[in-house]
């Protein structure tokens, strides 16, 4: 029998998550998977221990030859049970599932059992969400950042972190405490107060309606979370350890981030922490800033050739066109098994991209390097220029040169960097609006969403902005443009947009989904 190792599903790696665009597992499982990964990120991004581990992870990425990755992995070993208990429980509760083992996911049964032990097996989901969040946060709110802030990096050792400051140990203290009895008492009280409300009673298949987290019910939910956080903290203190307040770690986190930045003078890349996106609480750590989607349609092999050796154009007859992609070389190296000539050692390169077929099947992706827009002036086929947002950040001069050479009707910006952060920045300018629409796209059995739009200001229009995402990401975007004050006033939906841009989108999307191996707002990372 061949090895059977799990490859589908999602993976969280401190800065964001990766999902495999699946073929047939169903939208319900897609949603559960991505919600699970999102909650890992939320816990890391809002707590003291998570702040430390993501800072160390950023150092590990910036300095791969030093021992940061060992430290990061050791810190993860100290917090992985809390992370899984939180992500398993919260993803079940918020996707309208019972707190019960998930069919087909035996590796998570024991975490389900721990969640049931921690908050009670039959607890109403509205109370269970608050209780689980409070418990996991209290476990992660140890004084670990204070230790990291005081100690030099040279002397910082995970083994020096006291056992009662490690989240997994704190979870055991909480499991052995009276916390679950407190939760059950609160459950009785909440049922008395809210039991008559529609949002408490839920409806068929939806035990936790969205209305239970909105308006006054949302305010009650936040109050309940705060009160259960106090209860979890009291239980931990009774067991002999301390708990940092919910926002009490920010000062130390800033100190630790500054210390980490000193180690990386060229800049420490760490997206999503509160201190880096002030005023954007809704957006920080969101799906459109952290998501990597692995696609399976594109060939693994790619060939790089110099300009003039082959045409590099795509399509036949009236569909003949050139698709010029501006991308960072490291993304090409990370995505494909490359053949042909070496890619120039530059921040970004421009290349005509097309697919080489072998009969009916895609054999490889062809990249024909183009050093100057003038090269394509004589080309009789229309040229579509598509800029990866990470390339625009890496080489603004190159991108500016190509922008000037191309009509905006044939120019697109594909977001492979944090999209909602960028969108918020663009929309902050007075008079700016973002005209947008979202569509479902099915590519070779993979179900994805594409958010498109153009930024408008004073009669001027930007290139077509494309944000490839999932159903989870599209729902996140809907919430963000409704609830974030900056986006709510600047973003408007125009259902005609896809029809208007259909010619352009046909070209860009077919190249994007059949030739890219990874897409999404976190896919700029190697």
């Amino acid at each position, binding site marked *: *029998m*061949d*090895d*059977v*190792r*799990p*490859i*589908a*599903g*999602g*993976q*969280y*790696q*401190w800065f964001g998550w990766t999902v495999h665009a699946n073929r047939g*597992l169903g939208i319900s*499982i897609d949603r*559960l*998977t991505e919600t*699970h*990964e999102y909650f*890992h990120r939320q816990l890391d991004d809002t707590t003291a221990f998570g702040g430390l581990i993501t800072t160390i992870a950023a150092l590990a990425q910036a300095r791969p030859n030093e021992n940061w990755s060992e430290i990061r*992995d050791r810190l*993860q*070993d100290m917090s*992985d*049970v809390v*992370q*899984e208990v939180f*992500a398993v429980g919260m*993803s079940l509760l918020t996707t309208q599932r019972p707190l019960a083992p998930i069919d*087909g*996911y*035996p*590796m*998570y049964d*024991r975490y389900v059992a*721990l969640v049931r032990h921690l908050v009670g097996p039959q607890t109403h989901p509205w109370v269970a969400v608050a209780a689980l969040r409070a418990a996991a946060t209290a476990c992660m709110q140890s004084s670990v950042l204070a230790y990291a802030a005081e100690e030099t990096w040279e002397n910082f050792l*995970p*083994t020096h972190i006291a*056992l009662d400051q*490690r989240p*997994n*140990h704190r*979870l*055991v203290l909480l*499991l052995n405490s009276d916390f679950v009895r407190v939760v059950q008492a609160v459950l009785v009280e909440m049922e008395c107060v809210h039991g008559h409300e529609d949002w408490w009673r839920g409806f068929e298949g939806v035990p936790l309606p969205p209305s239970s987290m909105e308006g006054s019910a949302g305010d009650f939910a936040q109050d309940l979370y705060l009160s259960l956080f106090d209860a979890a903290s009291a239980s931990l203190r009774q067991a002999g350890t301390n708990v940092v307040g919910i926002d009490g770690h920010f000062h130390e986190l800033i100190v630790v981030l500054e210390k980490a930045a000193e180690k990386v003078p060229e800049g420490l890349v760490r997206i999503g922490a509160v201190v880096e996106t002030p005023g954007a609480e809704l957006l920080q750590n969101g799906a459109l800033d952290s998501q990597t989607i692995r696609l399976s349609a594109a060939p693994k092999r790619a060939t790089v050739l110099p300009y003039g050796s082959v045409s590099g154009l795509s399509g036949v007859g009236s569909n003949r066109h050139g698709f010029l992609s501006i991308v960072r070389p490291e993304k090409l190296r990370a995505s494909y098994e490359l053949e042909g000539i070496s890619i120039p050692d530059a921040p970004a390169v421009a290349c005509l991209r097309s697919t080489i077929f072998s009969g009916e099947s895609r054999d490889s992706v062809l990249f024909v390097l183009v050093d100057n827009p003038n090269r394509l002036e004589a080309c009789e086929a229309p040229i579509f220029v598509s800029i990866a947002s990470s390339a625009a950040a890496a080489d603004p001069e190159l991108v500016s040169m190509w922008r000037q050479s191309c009509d905006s009707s044939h120019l697109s910006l594909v977001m492979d960097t944090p999209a909602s952060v960028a969108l918020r920045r663009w929309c902050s300018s007075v008079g700016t609006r973002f005209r947008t629409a979202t569509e479902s796209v099915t590519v070779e059995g993979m179900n994805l969403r594409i958010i498109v739009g153009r930024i408008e200001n004073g009669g001027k229009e930007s290139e077509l902005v494309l944000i490839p995402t999932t159903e989870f990401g599209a729902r996140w975007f809907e919430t963000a443009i409704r609830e974030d004050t900056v986006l709510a006033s600047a973003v408007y939906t125009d259902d005609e947009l896809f029809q208007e841009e259909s010619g352009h989108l046909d070209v860009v999307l077919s190249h994007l989904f059949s030739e890219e191996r990874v897409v999404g707002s976190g896919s700029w990372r190697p």
Partner: protein
Amino acid sequence: MTDFEPDLVQLSFGSVEALWEAWAPEGDDVLAHAAYERTMRWAIGLEEEGLYFRPGGWTINLPSTLVRIACASAILAAGFQIAGLDDLGREIIITAAGLTSAMDLRPVQLTRDDRLLVESMRKWALEDLRITAKEVREILPRRLRKQATREQVADALDRLVAAGIADRAGSDEYILRAAGSEAWIRISLGRV
């Protein structure tokens, strides 16, 4: 095709969980279970960066030696966790498990004639003296001497060495230990 075909066995998530169920202390220990699973995954090469959410379990074909070491490592890691040794490196745990898996700890079975041999040697007060198999054969009672060749006496002395009753002293010499000072445990490294 190579000359050396490893002896492959199938290890699955289910069998790893069954081993935990068989071994686990009563009442399950959250930290020990986590240490067990983490170490198992690391030892068999399933560990990846970060955390993940994936359907199904896993099944993997591995050389039997590696499976023995992985299982021993995982149980050792859980045991160390229970003992409060939280910060032992995985490399140390796996090295310890590798040594344990390489040790042959089968009890040595002495025959009645082996015991008669010990009695005869002690009767002649040969304890703590270097003596060859040929010399030992000479002091045997006539009945035993007739039955045993020099090679068979050497084999019997080797069993006494394995049992901790005697020691080797060079290629063909042995030293019988005094009564009461036999080795408590004798470890021999076998091929793994």
